[in-house]
């Protein structure tokens, strides 16, 4: 490993999330190798790379979802607004409210559409009454581009929606707790192209309000939705920079090979 690899993701300024020398282990197996990266607050950052390269693992360590995996261990420093999220003073429940997550497979609760969105605000006590909760639900669904489709059937089960609608419901559920960062783990991999396009539009609309990190297999998608792209390979961060730069003029051969479809 050369020195350049270690520092490739550093981008001094005023990052939302900043990691230094992060290693992630599953038991004895090392999944992430010395990753240092700074994530912007106004931009959409895409993590790309071949299957098993550790991009999802890295994403899940940003809101400590890896804590639930038996044998998972994170070393190094991950700062959210300068605050170490693995410090003992950090409350993991609050962290996950601040750093929301949308998963690969749409996973609405088997409850009504309303209750799906209202669940987060309820458990965090974000609404002081029914009217305010209604407002949060409507606002979140509107921002997730789902309000007009579901406003007449808020009491129907969230699982009765189509796949794309379910994923937008999950995004609405995530933004209902007013997070600062939204992590998206291949949010479109289970969706058809039309639903995918809707989600991508949505990511555009949400940009600026939340820092967004999206893991994707689809390089066109990364090129379309992100401003900055990080390329992972075998647990290493190979290259990180402006998306246009990465796709048109990558510095590393491995990046070029992956983007041009030589492997992956």
């Amino acid at each position: 490993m050369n020195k350049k690899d270690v520092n490739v993701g550093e981008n001094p300024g005023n990052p939302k999330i900043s990691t230094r020398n992060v290693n992630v282990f599953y038991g004895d197996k090392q999944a992430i190798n010395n990753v240092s990266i700074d994530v912007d607050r106004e931009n959409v950052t895409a993590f790309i790379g071949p299957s098993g390269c550790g991009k999802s693992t890295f994403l899940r360590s940003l809101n400590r979802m890896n804590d639930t995996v038996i044998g998972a261990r994170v070393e190094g420093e991950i700062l959210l607004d300068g605050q170490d999220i693995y410090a003992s003073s950090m409350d993991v429940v609050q962290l996950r409210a601040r750093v929301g997550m949308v998963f690969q497979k749409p996973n609405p609760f088997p409850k009504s559409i309303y209750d799906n969105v209202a669940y987060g605000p309820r458990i965090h006590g974000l609404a002081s009454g029914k009217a305010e909760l209604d407002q949060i639900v409507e606002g979140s669904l509107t921002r997730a581009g789902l309000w007009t489709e579901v406003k007449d059937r808020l009491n129907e089960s969230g699982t009765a929606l189509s796949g794309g609608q379910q994923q937008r419901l999950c995004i609405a559920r995530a933004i209902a707790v007013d997070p600062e960062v939204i992590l998206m783990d291949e949010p479109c991999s289970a969706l058809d192209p039309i639903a995918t396009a809707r989600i991508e539009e949505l990511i555009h609309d949400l940009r600026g309000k939340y820092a967004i990190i999206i893991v994707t297999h689809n390089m066109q998608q990364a090129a379309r939705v992100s401003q900055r792209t990080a390329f992972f390979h075998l647990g290493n961060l190979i290259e990180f920079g402006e998306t246009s730069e990465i796709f048109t003029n990558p510095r590393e051969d491995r990046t070029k090979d992956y983007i041009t479809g030589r492997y992956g």
Partner: protein
Amino acid sequence: MNKAVIDPTPTDWNGHIMQKRIASRYAAERRFKAMGFMAVALSTLFLAFLLFTMLGQGLRGFQRTEIAVEFDFPALTSGATAASVTGPNADAALNSMDIPGLVELAVGQQYAGLGDSLLTSAAAANVRQMLIDNPELVTSKQTLWLPADSRLDVAFKRKGEPAAEKTVAALSEKDALRTGFNWTFLTGADATDPSAVGIWAAFKGSLMTMAITLLLAFPVGVLAALYLEEYAPKNRLTDMIEVSINNLAAVPSIIFGLLGLAVFLTIFGMPRSSALVGGLTLALMTMPVIVIAGRNAVKSVPPSIREAALGIGASPVQVVFHHVLPLALPGILTGTIIGMARALGETAPLLMIGMRAFIPAAPEGFTDAATALPVQIYLWSDEVNQGFVEKTSAAIIVLLIFLLGMNALAIYLRNRFETRW
């Protein structure tokens, strides 16, 4: 192998060998279907046989033979009035009447020479109840239908002792016999006279025992299942606990009875043969079943739901109680009721803790001496008196109806809480 691959002759799908293969495949399918059908038919046959014999024997247990006895109340009571057997002094008035004496006198007058024990020992109590229910009876001549003695009951319903058969024939000639519904069986308790026994005491004992079992085994079992699945670290200790629980579920029930005897009666000195101790003992037996069923139900909740809840900042306890438990509840309830049904039918552990005592009155509280349905069935089946045969079958019918009710409840609860995806 390689030769076959390169073999240029195309597969003859319509050839003789292929046709034979198809025929044998169809034959195998037919054989399997026939065997499956036979298995189902055989089990249905067993069930039908069980129900048929039980109903055939047991329904008679719900009936009793009654003898018409004429009471000339004005003469017998030397002019008691309806007013004298009502009101606050009714008890004293009825006591002073000497009803057992009256019954003996009336029967003696009417059926002289047919033996002295035509009626069951409870007949006097029946007359007393009739007078309390309808005081007007006392003012006139009445014909009352009173339950016959067990020997006559058996002889009238099927074949009995020769002497009893003769009496029945004589009574039938006078048109003095009929079959009535045996309310005593549903409301009474154990007795030495089979025509006076009832199932209520045992039923109530079972109900109270089950209540204790459910109250203890359900919360403890569910919490243990949730803790083991959601919280416990996966290490050697939890592996050992898991193996122990699985083994505990397979331990013969009589051993739980001995455990209950040693722990609850000897060490803690709890009241012998009480519903409390019975319930505790059966709870020990049921808990592992609930833990196993609960763990399977919790395991089958998709992990994506847990991740979704954790991902928006639900605490682990909120994940469990808002999402996992509601989704696992149908499975947990089904497992619980299967465990409870098994406990309901359990006899051996209850014998060990002394619930086989003769209980002539329904228990009033959880510490009173009680018995349970299966134990009552066991006790009655052991009686030499012919009259207990049909009572045993009738008690089995009551137990089966109880079980059926519990299973129906399980199905209802499962459908009620089942989440549609």
